[in-house]
């Protein structure tokens, strides 16, 4: 794996999930390029983006997997849950169906990631206030009930996009500081240093456990 020309202390792996058309790729694009992609094609399988951010004075490289929302790619995208330190779960505030599917996304995430994975709920397209179909309050309540972080954002205006990614990183960093996150477990989604040799081994009890559940 290449380190690139930058110095960073950690690599955090993120995954962005949610129904088709909620704006996952646009959120990623807004975050990495600071631009809105107006006619974004459907994602095939997964797309990938990186950006280096700074949390508490530490340079952190975010490796973000943007997954396809289409059902037919579910098998492909499942591979990327494992080893995600942060999961951004996205719904579209103008389409209630995308909100209604959140619980199944959440179940998937909980099953395929480890307990310390930070899950962040994003209600996208908050610039379309007129077409709102899901109120902030009910989503907030859903988030609180499931222990998720929550924000309404807009990939179009960029509102809260940065915050969602950074807040997730802060939470993950906090977990590392508290010792809740085992850096030596590959599926933690965090690597301490770039291109550290021999980082591909797993400590597998937990993983195997989950695999069993998933199978």
């Amino acid at each position: 794996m290449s380190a690139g020309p930058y110095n960073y202390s950690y690599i955090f792996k993120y995954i962005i999930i949610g129904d088709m058309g909620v704006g996952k790729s646009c959120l990623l694009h807004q975050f990495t390029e600071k631009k809105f992609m107006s006619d974004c094609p459907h994602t095939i399988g997964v797309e990938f983006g990186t950006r280096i951010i700074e949390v508490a004075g530490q340079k952190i490289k975010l490796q973000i997997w943007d997954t396809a929302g289409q059902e037919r790619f579910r098998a492909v995208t499942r591979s990327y849950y494992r080893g995600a330190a942060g999961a951004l779960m996205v719904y579209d505030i103008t389409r209630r169906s995308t909100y209604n599917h959140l619980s199944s996304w959440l179940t998937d995430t909980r099953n395929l990631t480890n307990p310390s994975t930070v899950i962040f709920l994003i209600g996208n397209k908050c610039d379309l206030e007129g077409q709102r179909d899901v109120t902030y309050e009910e989503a907030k309540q859903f988030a609180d009930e499931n222990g998720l972080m929550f924000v309404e954002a807009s990939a179009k205006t960029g509102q809260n996009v940065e915050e969602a990614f950074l807040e997730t990183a802060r939470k993950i960093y906090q977990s590392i500081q508290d010792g809740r996150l085992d850096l030596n477990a590959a599926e933690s989604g965090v690597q301490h240093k770039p291109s550290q040799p021999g980082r591909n081994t797993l400590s597998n009890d937990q993983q195997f456990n989950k695999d069993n559940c998933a199978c």
Partner: protein
Amino acid sequence: MRELPEKENVLSKRLNKLLETRVENDHDTLEALKELSTFYCDNSLQARRNLRSQIEKRSLQINENFLSEFREVKESFDSIYNDIADMSKSLEDMTLRLQNAKRQTKHLLEQTSSYENEIAKNEMQQKVATAFLNKFILTHEELVALHGNKQKRDLVITPEIFVVLDKVQRIHNDCKTLMQSGYQTLALDVMEQMTLHQEGALERLYHWTQNHCRNVENLTDLLTQAMCRLQDRPVLFKYVIDEYCISRRAVLVGEFIDALTRGGPSGNPAPIEMRAHDPHVYVTDILVWLNKAIPIENQNLHLLVSLCNKEDKYELLTNAMASICEGICHPLKIRIDKILNASTQSSSLYAITNLIRYYKKSIGKVSEGGLLALTLSELQEKSEQIFLIALQQQVSNCLVRVETPPRDLSPTPAINHLLSVMRDMLSTASMSEGRETDMGKIVQCVLDPLLRAVNEQSSRLPPTDMAVYMLNCMYAMQTCLSLYEFMDDKLERLQAQSDAQLDTLTSEQASSLVANLNLGPIYTILQDHAHAPLSGIPGMEPGNLRNFLSKLDMLVSLPDSMLLQQIHLLSSSKHKKSVQKRAFDVLLAIYKQLYEGVYDANNLYENPASILPRTPSELMKMLS
């Protein structure tokens, strides 16, 4: 009585004196006596008596004689006196006249000497004037050299004109000295005249040069000298250069078109358009021709102004070159545009792009800026664009049909083909200029659609096959990209994606191992048991454990036997080893837990060594 003696004394004295007198000693007396003897011949009384009278008579006679004689003398003296008086008078007259004459002559002399001075002065002046004329005025021959003969206006320019021009310039400069010495009017007049001469001559030179520069064969010494003179008149100079550019532009276009359509003399070399069917050769030939012709133009142009030393010469040459090259832009653009629009092969388009880039740089060294540089830039940009579009088209044509991955889960032919296309292109790109952006664009054009296609293909496969297929495809891509620089981003992405698939595969393999070894129930019990001794729990009896162990022995003797068959299809042995090792690690972790459980006295196993003879570390050695 006393007086007497004295009287007597004086008498005596006188007597004595008489007595004592000696006649012979007295000359006068002697003379007188002699005289007397001449006429007193007879000593008679009579005679004696008469002596006196005689003497007196004689004396009278003598005096009378003397008188008469003297009268004569006096008369003659008088006449002499008169004469002398006359002479004196005439002398006086003469003197007077002489003085007059003398006075008159002096004036004349003065006049003469003043004339002489004047003559000297005039001679001097004449010398000065001649010198002046020599120095400040042009001779007839020079004027002819300068302005040509009035009768035959079209007199050719001779090298003398430059000598005369130098002189004119020198005179002009000398006038400044003249001016400082106080001859302002004169100096100004001369200066004006010289300026007129100069202008006239330069004007003539300009016409001549303009007429002669049209033909490069005429690039004689005379012409370069003329250009050197004309550089002081920017407007004229520019007109000449413009004229030159216009004529050369036309010639260059003509030659270009000839080279394209007619070829060399008697068709050798063949016309470039004969090879228009091969875009690469065609474009190469065109650009090579230009790359050869333009430096020649540049050389000629430099020769033309070789003697000039203007400060803005460089800029001027640049503009002139740009102007000369303007004409060929249009035919060039039309032809290359046609090729770009007709040719669909992305590899040949890329070759053309690189050709244009190379020759743009090469030609740019000779002719900077201007329409040609602009045209080449446009063509370069266009060919880059068309190349990328063609490449995208080629990629999407290859991937238009979603192929089913082959049974051996190796990358499909389309993917292999595109990877080899990309590899070929990257090999070329890695040697081209601006390779980083080029390679980035090429990879983006090929790799992103490829990844999408692989995802699409994989989505139709069962999880294990999917992971293996994706790993194989990604491995092929990594192998291809890792040969080149600037691929870090892409490689990082592929690596991360491979890692995710390796994780999936590992967990599949681990699950399969656990299932094959009947370890599932045992593991669940190990995780859940809290209080009761393990040996008492159904499924954890020593017999059951031995059953597991016999299967484990099989695995140890044949480690590959329990690998998923798909694992063998992984093209990277590294991937294969990694999956195997990590799956065995899971197994070892469970075995370790079981081992500790069996050897724990609380679990009431009898003779644990007979049930689990191998320690976890022994097993690890066996499996690795």
